């Protein structure tokens, strides 16, 4: 759970590309945000791995 929350934190830290259409917030990351996004991906992957392990453990008991 903490890993997933950290993944969200990492995504939030990724700087967004400035928009030129006058709107306040973009959804596209700027180039400097790649490292943050990579870190986020690692966190999410670790969380997904934990889920898969949990399912396997559950099924191994069934």
């Amino acid at each position, binding site marked *: *759970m903490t890993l997933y*929350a950290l993944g*969200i934190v990492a995504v939030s830290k990724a700087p967004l590309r400035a928009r030129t259409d006058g709107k306040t917030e973009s959804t596209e990351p700027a180039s400097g945000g790649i490292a943050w996004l990579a870190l986020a991906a690692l966190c999410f992957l670790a969380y997904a791995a934990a889920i898969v392990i*949990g399912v396997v453990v*559950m099924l191994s*008991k*069934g």
Partner: protein
Amino acid sequence: MTTGLIIVVVVTALAFDFTNGFHDTANAMATSIATGALKPRIAVLVSAVLNLVGAFLSISVAATIASGVVDAKVVTPQVVFAGLVGAIAWNLVTWYLGLPSSSSHALIGGVVGATLVAVGPNAVKFAGIISKVLVPAVISPLLAGLVAGIATYVAYKLTDKQRQSTVKTGFRIGQIASASLVSLAHGTNDAQKTMGVITLAMITAGLLPANSAPPVWVILAAGLSIAAGTYIGGWRVIRTLGKGLTEIESPQGFAAETASAVVILASSHAGFPLSTTHVCSGGIIGAGVGKRLARVHWGVAGKMAVAWLLTLPAAAIVGALVGQGASLLGAPGIWIMAVVVAAFGFGIYLLSRRNSVSANNVNDSVNPPQPVAVATGVGA
């Protein structure tokens, strides 16, 4: 044993499976629906599919009905039928009241009541009831609540100062994953009970050899019944869990569902029996407590606790009455009782139509807003 009796037991078992499905949809999907992570119809569809998948993933009937709670040698199809009717009746009543309660405990209660009437107290393992039913019923919601409370606190602490649009979206996606996991776990555990009941009845009737695995049609029928029940959506219970206990935000929903999944998986690994309903309800309350300044409606939680306390004795009383009634009425007794329970179910359905809860109003508030005190002082 007649084929007719087997048909009645099979149909009643599938009916129980159906009520189990719609009663327990809320466990997995209530928070996802409440936070808007999933639209109500999509949520129940996802849950239904995963329950069906779960039914096929695990087909062990080792954990047969009421094992360790009553003497397995005295469990006849008549006892199973009466137990199923007790469980169905309790599921319908609590569904009408919008109260989450354990279908497994209802089934155990029904079988215990029917066994008491059919054989006597010597066939009931009271120590098993304490260790397999009562102790987990107390510990599991507390444990899930504690884990969810800590997870909620950590989630808010970590993401409090981050971009809120990203946080909200991120936790909503996480909710879908964790709720799906709970649905899958539910399918593997609960559909199996019905398979066990039907297989046991067929073995007793000599239609299957001893220690048989459930036939494919039994797996399919049990899986489809629980999936159909799940898809129908127990909107009343979903509303209570999603809106009645606390106002849930996406980090809380994620924490509640993930904590529930962790507790269910860990207990499954340890062989510790527990109710998905108790775990998920405890998780939601914990998520409410874990957020600073969040309000938990303890009155609703209290009603749920009372329902949990009453599950075993109430289902036992119905199971005992049905078992006794079927016995007194002779050969057609089970048929008559089947008609009675069908009529009861239809009556509850008609009652529910008077204040219908559906996918359209499931996110309406359960607790009416408190009247605001208006100052009427002189000179105001």
